[in-house]
């Protein structure tokens, strides 16, 4: 469903791969090796050569904003610009999925912990119903319990929506849990297969 062809990130060999509907590809590697730049290129946040398509729809076919509504990038550190939580959400979100009640809408951003902001930013992204999730260390500042909740939420989202995800993580055991069958190791510039068949 997602076709990435010959993405040329400066200093790296051209990157090409395809993901089937529902698939989650892992990405690992040392910091500074280009993981974030790859995600930014797919989300069309930087000017990078190469083509990215979702089924028949390619980057130049729609405006940048329309593309990013479908290809959602979750940055390692979420940003907030209004005083309270609610105005940041473009559509209604399933707050309960990550353990929030309805009162969270009125919370002051300045009083949220980094973990709360991280979980809210995941819900904010999913509220757009994107077809491609680009997750940059999505659970870096979460405890074990919330990490598992996020992993489950993403897996359910992919299955229900026939969406795909690229999951960047330093944590090998997490990648082995979340990916469908393989992850890309930037340090070795190689695909590593961890599962034999794609679970649905």
């Amino acid at each position, binding site marked *: 469903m997602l076709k990435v062809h010959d993405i040329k990130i400066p200093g790296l060999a051209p990157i090409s791969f395809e993901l089937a509907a529902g698939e989650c590809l892992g990405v690992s590697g040392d910091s500074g090796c280009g993981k*974030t*730049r790859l995600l*930014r290129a797919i*989300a*069309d*946040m*930087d*000017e990078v050569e190469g083509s990215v398509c979702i089924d028949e729809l390619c980057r130049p076919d729609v*405006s*940048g*904003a*329309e*593309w*990013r*509504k479908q290809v*959602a*990038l*979750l*940055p390692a*550190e*979420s*940003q*907030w*610009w209004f005083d309270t939580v609610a105005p940041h959400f*473009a559509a209604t979100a399933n707050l309960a999925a990550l353990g929030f009640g309805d009162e969270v809408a009125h919370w002051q951003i300045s009083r949220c912990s980094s973990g709360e902001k991280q979980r809210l930013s995941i819900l*904010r*992204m999913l509220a*757009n119903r994107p077809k491609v999730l680009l997750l940059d260390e999505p659970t870096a500042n979460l405890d074990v319990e919330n990490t598992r909740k996020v992993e489950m939420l993403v897996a359910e989202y992919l299955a229900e929506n026939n969406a795909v995800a690229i999951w960047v993580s330093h944590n090998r055991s997490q990648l082995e849990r979340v990916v469908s069958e393989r992850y890309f190791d930037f340090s070795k510039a190689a695909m590593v297969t961890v599962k034999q068949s794609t679970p649905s």
Partner: protein
Amino acid sequence: MNTLISLSAYDLMLAALLVLALVGLVARMNLGITQQLVIAAIRTTVQLLLVGLVLKQVFESAQLSLIALIMLVMLTVAAWEVLSRQKRKIKAFWGFAISVISLFVSSFLITLIALFFIIGTDPWYTPQYAIPLLGMLLGNTMNGIALGMDRLIQTAWQQRAVIEQRLMLGQTAIEAIREIRHESMRAGMIPIINAMAAAGIVSLPGMMTGQILSGTEPVEAVKYQILIMFLITAGTGFGVIAVLHLISKRLFDARDRLRFDQLLAEKTPDY
């Protein structure tokens, strides 16, 4: 109070004696600005005398080409001044182009409208009206334009992570900097709004004071001052809108990506 009392060189020397007395006191007290004070006093005398001579020539000849040349020089210097007030260095070509266009809107167009449709001078480029009018509009709208531009670029730079986050959520470039633009518009307009509110109570505007000194009926002078205030306000508003529009356009590319490299001269960090 019908005619202006002409000042003689002797009168000016008496005023200069006041400055000299200050220089003497400052030197005695070792306050350390003696030299700057003397140089500035000499500069103002020479520069203003030169401008007086130039204006005398221009007013006598009233040639359109000469007036146009002087107006062009004024516009260029004002654009330079806008750029020099920016905390972040903008690419020379774009910075200059954006300043010139904004100042053209804020001052040139407004001056032309005033000459043609409001004051109705004959010919329209009568230098006694055209040059001081343009000068006042440039001098005053330049502040708003410089402030609005600086606020937009500085705030966008500080909040670049927020702008990119909003883009990542599918917002367009215009949506992603909406609040920053509002704030920059305010920053550019507040000085002239305050000046209008304080005029006549806290301050007597310079042009009106000058006209009254030269023998104009106060109510006539006030009418001109109100006209100027409105022109400056409209000019500042249109000029700030123009500069914010042009800077925002340059800040993003056709794919709505944040591109400080298109605007700033210094290298922006890689992500």
